[in-house]
């Protein structure tokens, strides 16, 4: 599939901004310079500012061309396991860009931004409801920061009851952020292995709890697990952990499988972080922004991060409130609200407060607000039945892929999966010396973004496929056909697979040299 018309020695796909630089160009016109008496003293100012100078067309073409070198959900199926690359509705972008949101200043008094706070309040309530927990904080700026916040909440709670617990138990199939977070929060990490069927090994857990007993602060697990499986022992696990006086921390990275099907709080979780850029469709942006709200049980709510949105019963607190606007914010929420919802806030105002025993701030302001707007709009477009339909279709799609590929690729855990299905390329490696990486790269030639590779670490040659509910049966079939064709190629033409991709903008890149001799800027 190599494009033979391409010069073999073409040095670059697109010049850098620095290579496009020509002194004397500018891409935006601005007002004239101010008079000399309104300029700072020369002793403080810089004389050089080595930024590139470009024309407007240079800038537009540069970024348009670079975008065309990217694959994305908008252009390709992107079945990255544990990343939930689903449809990102454009109406959510529209909502986040409304001037009433985009031009609100974070240091404005609460009374001036009732619409923003009403949205946040409702999203807190919604996430707590889906989690089966009592309250939620929107402050964490990403999933990993949500983890940190959740673990710090646990730490603060334990300190408040005079318990000194210094250990967090993490399965070794966990996301790398889990142990990194535990360590950032000052905890020691104890890892436990899963049993062969993928569920947690209760005997291992019992041993870990007995060995570290009174020092265990929490068990940190992902449910469904990173193996794409719902741990069938979850209720026993919760009971064992709670019996040791420790808490259950849930990594909600895989919430897309169970939202509306079961509430994590009902499974025994005390804290859950939720990646809005996964389950709730915030576009991933090539690496963020996301948001990682945490939901907690009532006894942990006093420790939630600052600030937190609350509803004031009276509206007299906001002396400088534009009253009609405040009322508009709360009454707007009620418009379209299900009558089953009992929360009514007539003539009330929302406030940003520091919870009484808050762990403190996670960022300069109240969270990644634009992300919260998109997630709120996404959930409102689905409603309760849509949330259930979402997770149901996600699980159906994953099991369909598993069923179609089970003969061609080894299933380390041969059982019904949740929203993602985990294969191993162990067989291809043993027979043809073809690795998971090769299969992933070959998929690019078929027009599919590769699945997650080599994660979770506990499975050799892992390929973790998460199709999401957004993909149609035709797309799933085309993906499965490609995977089957590649499995056949592993026998018929292994070099073709090992040399892939052949049709992408670039062939495989030399990552070793990049790390050995870092060139990190022009």
């Amino acid at each position: 599939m190599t494009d033979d018309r391409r010069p073999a020695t073409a040095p670059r796909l697109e010049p850098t901004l620095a290579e496009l630089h020509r002194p004397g160009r500018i891409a935006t016109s601005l007002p004239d310079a101010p008079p000399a008496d309104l300029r700072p003293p020369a002793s403080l100012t810089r004389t050089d500012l080595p930024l590139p100078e470009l024309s407007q067309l240079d800038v537009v073409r540069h970024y348009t061309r670079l975008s065309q070198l990217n694959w994305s959900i908008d252009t390709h199926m992107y079945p990255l396991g544990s990343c939930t690359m689903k449809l990102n509705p454009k109406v959510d972008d529209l909502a986040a860009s409304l001037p009433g949101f985009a031009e609100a200043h974070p240091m404005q008094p609460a009374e001036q931004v009732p619409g923003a706070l009403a949205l946040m309040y409702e999203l807190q309530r919604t996430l707590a409801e889906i989690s089966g927990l009592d309250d939620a904080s929107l402050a964490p700026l990403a999933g990993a920061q949500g983890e940190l916040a959740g673990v710090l909440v646990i730490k603060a709670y334990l300190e408040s009851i005079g318990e000194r617990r210094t250990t967090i138990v993490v399965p070794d199939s966990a996301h790398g952020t889990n142990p990194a977070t535990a360590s950032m929060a000052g905890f020691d990490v104890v890892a436990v292995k899963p049993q062969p069927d993928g569920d947690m090994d209760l005997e291992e857990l019992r041993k870990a709890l007995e060995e570290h007993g009174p020092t265990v602060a929490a068990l940190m697990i992902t449910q469904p697990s990173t193996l794409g499986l719902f741990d069938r022992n979850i209720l026993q696990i919760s009971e064992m952990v709670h019996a040791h006086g420790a808490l259950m921390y849930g990594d909600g990275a895989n919430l897309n499988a169970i939202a509306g099907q079961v509430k994590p709080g009902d499974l025994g979780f005390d804290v859950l972080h939720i990646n809005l850029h996964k389950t709730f469709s915030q576009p991933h942006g090539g690496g963020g922004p996301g948001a990682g709200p945490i939901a907690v049980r009532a006894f942990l709510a006093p420790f939630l991060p600052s600030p937190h949105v609350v509803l004031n019963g009276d509206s007299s607190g906001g002396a400088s409130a534009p009253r009609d606007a405040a009322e508009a914010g709360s009454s707007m929420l009620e418009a379209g609200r299900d009558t089953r919802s009992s929360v009514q806030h007539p003539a009330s105002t929302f406030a940003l407060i520091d919870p009484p025993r808050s762990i403190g701030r996670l960022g300069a302001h109240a969270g990644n607000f634009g992300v919260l707007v998109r997630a709120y709009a996404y959930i409102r477009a689905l409603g309760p039945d849509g949330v259930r339909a979402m997770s149901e279709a996600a699980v159906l799609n994953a099991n369909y892929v598993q069923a179609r590929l089970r003969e061609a690729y080894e299933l380390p855990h041969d059982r019904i999966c949740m929203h993602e299905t985990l294969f191993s390329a162990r067989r291809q490696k043993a027979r043809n010396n073809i690795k998971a990486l090769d299969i992933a790269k070959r998929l690019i030639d078929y027009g599919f973004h590769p699945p997650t590779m080599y994660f979770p670490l506990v499975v050799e040659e892992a390929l973790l496929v998460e199709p999401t509910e957004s993909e149609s049966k035709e797309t799933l079939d085309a993906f499965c056909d490609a995977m089957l064709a590649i499995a056949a190629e592993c026998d018929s033409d292994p070099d073709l697979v090992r040399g892939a991709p052949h049709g992408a903008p670039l062939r495989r890149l030399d990552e070793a040299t990049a790390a050995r001799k870092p060139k990190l800027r022009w």
Partner: protein
Amino acid sequence: MIETEPAPSMSDHPPIGDDALHPYIPLTPDDRAAMLATIGVADTDALFADIPAHLRNPDLDLPPALPEPALVAHMRALAAANVTAETHACFLGAGAYRHYRPALVDPLVMRGEYLTSYTPYQPEVSQGTLQTIFEFQSLVCALTGMDVANAGMYDGATALAEACLMACAVTGRRRIAISDRVHPHWIAVVRNYAHGRDIAVDVQPHAEFAVTAEHACLAVQQPDFLGRVSTSAQSWADAAHDAGALFVAAADPVSLGLYRPPSDYGADIVVGEGQSLGVPLSFGGPYVGLFACRDKYIRQMPGRIVGETTDLDGRRGYVLTLQTREQHIRRERATSNICTSQQLIALSTAVYLAALGPHGLRRVAELSYARAHDLARRIASIPGYTVEDDEPWFCEFVVRTPRPVDEINRALLEHNIIGGLDVSDVRNRMLLCATEMNSDDELDRLVGALSEVEASR
């Protein structure tokens, strides 16, 4: 290569008005039936059999689905309830600044190929994101004068916190010195991150810093929380270095269009809030933290880093690199737990800088400086108001007001003006900000309204 079934014809569709349709979920009843048959189960309930049956299908107390037109109307109504810089003249700064966002920025940044791609783990099909990160790193280096930069942090405050933790890792010390003139919210974040690792934080009075051999760093902000730009920064750097500590400087990137970069006065790590580079205020986020340091500390730097390399044919390309610092490899020994960050906002700031170039950024900084100084001069001439002007400042300044700040702000709101932040101590003090976005007319209105407040006593 792949045989596909013929597409159904347009005449083959279910009756119009089927309530089961949802635009986000494409499976049809026929699809479902075929898929369940392939899987070999009777219904989707069988796929959820691992979940304890008595906990399945809980009641979900959420409002019902809104069709798209109603959703848009609902979102517009919520948005319209807010007083904003769009509806009112805004003189608030304090860490979030309104600057002109060139028209080309949004259409480029919002291209689906950037917006809906994941972290670039597959470089062959992610060169767009990877090259823009490499360029972002280069632009941050150019602005700050530092050797290397990462792909961005959550915001300026967390960038500062991570810089302080990094200084602890570099020096092996467990105490942080930070200036009391740093934004109080940023100090709160530093405290929070430090508390997790049982690291002590000493908030020290400005210009009376006492950096000792126990301190990993001295952290300052320039311009500081109240907008002031000090001429003594080099002496602080010397004090930190004499004690074997690193000097960490937080700097507003627009101010760096005008002022000497922190590399000039001895910074080892430079952080900043990227929002001022044309990112919408958006009630506090998403923003992006800038993070740059000296070469020798690369391997302690948190966050993602992109490096240049070549492909098998020798063509230039970019990859995520130095990943052994990161959580997905090193797990509990990682430099930070940071994973998903703020890439799209980093891209937005890079497009902004490309659109402005050095002359444009300089102009934005000069105009902001001039607007704010013109405003200060005019306010200083109103009886009852005093501008604190004993130190140089950039585009924010403190005004001592004749009446409590919240009272004044209430009066200003009636004139469709969002006033400054209340920073009163024993005196009534207001922190006001002006940028190139504040028109002459807005300045006139603010000065007029402040005069009226005083006259109405």
